[in-house]
């Protein structure tokens, strides 16, 4: 199931909220949330729900064994086995096809390529489950004796499918004890509604523009057309993914959970390093704390550690070479910044810093977008004037989407943050407080109405991050 669907908004969510708020105590609330989460997953992926439950079971048992054999060599062994099985599922269901294809072409043999479809959300929930066993091993969190609570943590429907990657340590206490205040719930609703309109309007229309420019046939796309197509993709991927996080965080608040932030206006970063502190923060945080630092971090073989982490970051996004290239591309720029240009960059004019970062990021999205290398080559030919500077068709399309591009660019900047600041300031006075309250209420109604209209009228609305 996806958030941006009418069945979610007007069947699943009302029933879930009703049951949740009718439930008397935290235990029943947890069970309600768990039951709805399993249904949420099952309607999209009826078969793979067993895989998810099995993953949690493995990590549940693993956690208990690690705790029992604490401070003996066995604890490490238990962690190793648990992590290997958990990652093994990911390897088989996400990467088996990729590996066999590559082995086949490398050795010129023909092993059967397993035709497994990708279980939705596996990349996200695998990492979540891992943070649990690893943190139990490290003694950072107490072992979870109750299976259903651990299952609830991993399968909770707001963050189940496309993040943010919530660490067990971040919600450990909330699983047993949490309260929802009226203001927190209202803030969650506001956040959710804004996420919904970001997805249904900005991301979806940007996706259409991108498809028109870089879709089926690249033949005939002019230079400006190709550039605008890439710009549209840049807008789409940010609004799509951050909208999902907004909705997840908002829903979390409605149920009394505090999920970590995932995006902090990544496109206003002033260096590539800064970009990765702002983009998909829970993923880079995971790789830092659970891969990079255990490998030795900055102290030992750091260049190698960086290389590995960025290869994995790329590979995590998809079982295809282009994602690995995309990861290595960032490795190169991060190394460059760290070793050579970082200090010089810091002294430059801010405009140049931002332009440099945006250029690197946008070019990166080209590697990300084209899974097929021959199409990537075609794209580069297009952008370098193969079909002229600007064709009439492209000009018309761009003119039609001008408002969308404007909205996408403006709201990639911290406009919302600025408005939020203003709201806090005005709220200190009584009159201002009323005005802000009215504005917020109207925003919620507006977002819901517009999004509903878009969903009724439009069938095109895949979440990009569903593929990962």
């Amino acid at each position, binding site marked *: 199931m996806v958030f941006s669907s009418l069945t979610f*908004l007007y069947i699943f969510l009302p029933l879930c909220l009703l049951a949740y708020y009718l439930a008397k105590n935290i235990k029943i609330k947890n069970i309600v949330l768990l039951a709805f989460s399993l249904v949420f997953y099952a309607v999209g992926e009826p078969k793979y729900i067993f895989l998810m439950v099995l993953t949690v079971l493995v990590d549940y048992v693993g956690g208990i064994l690690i705790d029992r054999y604490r401070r003996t060599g066995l604890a490490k062994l238990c962690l190793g086995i648990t992590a290997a099985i958990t990652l093994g599922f990911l390897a088989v269901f996400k990467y088996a096809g990729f590996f066999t294809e590559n082995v086949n072409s490398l050795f010129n043999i023909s092993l059967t390529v397993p035709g497994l479809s990708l279980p939705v959300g596996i990349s996200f929930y695998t990492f979540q489950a891992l943070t649990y066993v690893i943190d139990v091993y490290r003694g950072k969190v107490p072992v979870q004796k109750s299976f259903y609570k651990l299952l609830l943590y991993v399968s909770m429907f707001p963050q189940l499918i496309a993040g943010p990657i919530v660490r067990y340590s971040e919600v450990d206490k909330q699983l047993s004890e949490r309260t929802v205040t009226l203001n927190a719930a209202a803030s969650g609703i506001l956040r959710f509604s804004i996420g919904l309109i970001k997805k249904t309007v900005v991301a979806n229309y940007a996706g259409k523009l991108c498809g028109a420019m870089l879709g089926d046939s690249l033949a005939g796309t002019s230079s400006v057309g190709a550039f605008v197509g890439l710009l549209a993709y840049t807008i789409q991927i940010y609004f799509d993914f951050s909208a999902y996080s907004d909705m997840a965080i908002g829903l979390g608040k409605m149920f009394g959970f505090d999920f970590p932030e995932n995006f902090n206006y990544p496109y206003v970063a002033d260096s590539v390093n800064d970009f990765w502190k702002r983009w998909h923060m829970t993923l880079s945080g995971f790789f830092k704390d659970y891969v990079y630092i255990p490998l030795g971090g900055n102290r030992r073989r750091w260049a190698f550690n960086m290389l590995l982490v960025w290869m994995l970051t790329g590979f995590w996004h998809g079982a295809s070479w282009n994602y690995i290239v995309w990861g290595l591309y960032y490795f190169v720029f991060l190394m460059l910044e760290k070793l050579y240009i970082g200090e010089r960059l810091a002294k430059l004019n801010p405009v140049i810093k931002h332009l440099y970062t945006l250029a690197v990021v946008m070019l990166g999205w080209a590697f990300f977008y084209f899974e097929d290398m021959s199409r990537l080559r075609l794209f580069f030919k297009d952008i370098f004037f193969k079909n002229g500077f600007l064709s009439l068709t492209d000009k018309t399309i761009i003119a039609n989407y001008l408002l969308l591009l404007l909205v996408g660019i403006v709201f990639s900047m911290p406009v919302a943050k600025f408005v939020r600041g203003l*709201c806090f300031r005005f709220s200190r006075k009584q009159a201002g*407080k009323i005005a*802000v309250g009215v504005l917020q*209420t109207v925003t919620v109604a507006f977002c819901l109405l517009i999004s509903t209209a878009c969903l*009724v009228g439009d069938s095109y609305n895949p979440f990009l991050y569903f593929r990962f």
Partner: protein
Amino acid sequence: MAKKPAAKKRPVVTGKYAALAICLVFVLFLSFFFLVSLFDRTEEVSQKENRSLKQRPKFSMKAVFDGSYHTEYDEYYTDQFPFRDKLLDLNTHIQDLFSQKSSGDDGMVIYDKGDKDDFAGQSID
């Protein structure tokens, strides 16, 4: 690569009445469409779009397990959504604003690139 802890932040909605109003709007919105679609009668044809609308899919365990039931139910629900025609009108306005696909300045229909072949005369009827 930095990690932001999930800090307890103060709620964005500060006013008590504002919070109440927001929750009320949300609950009304959700329950309104939920209830109306529950009791709404199923239409067979859309006069507006000149096509037959999706009917309630047949329930079977097989369809549930291969996921097709959910897909078809989604289509059915969207086709039978309450105030569908009004919402479609609103959607057309949004479309005009953000992609202007319905008509160009001179009243000429402008297609996306996907339909461009028609202009070249390859598949024109």
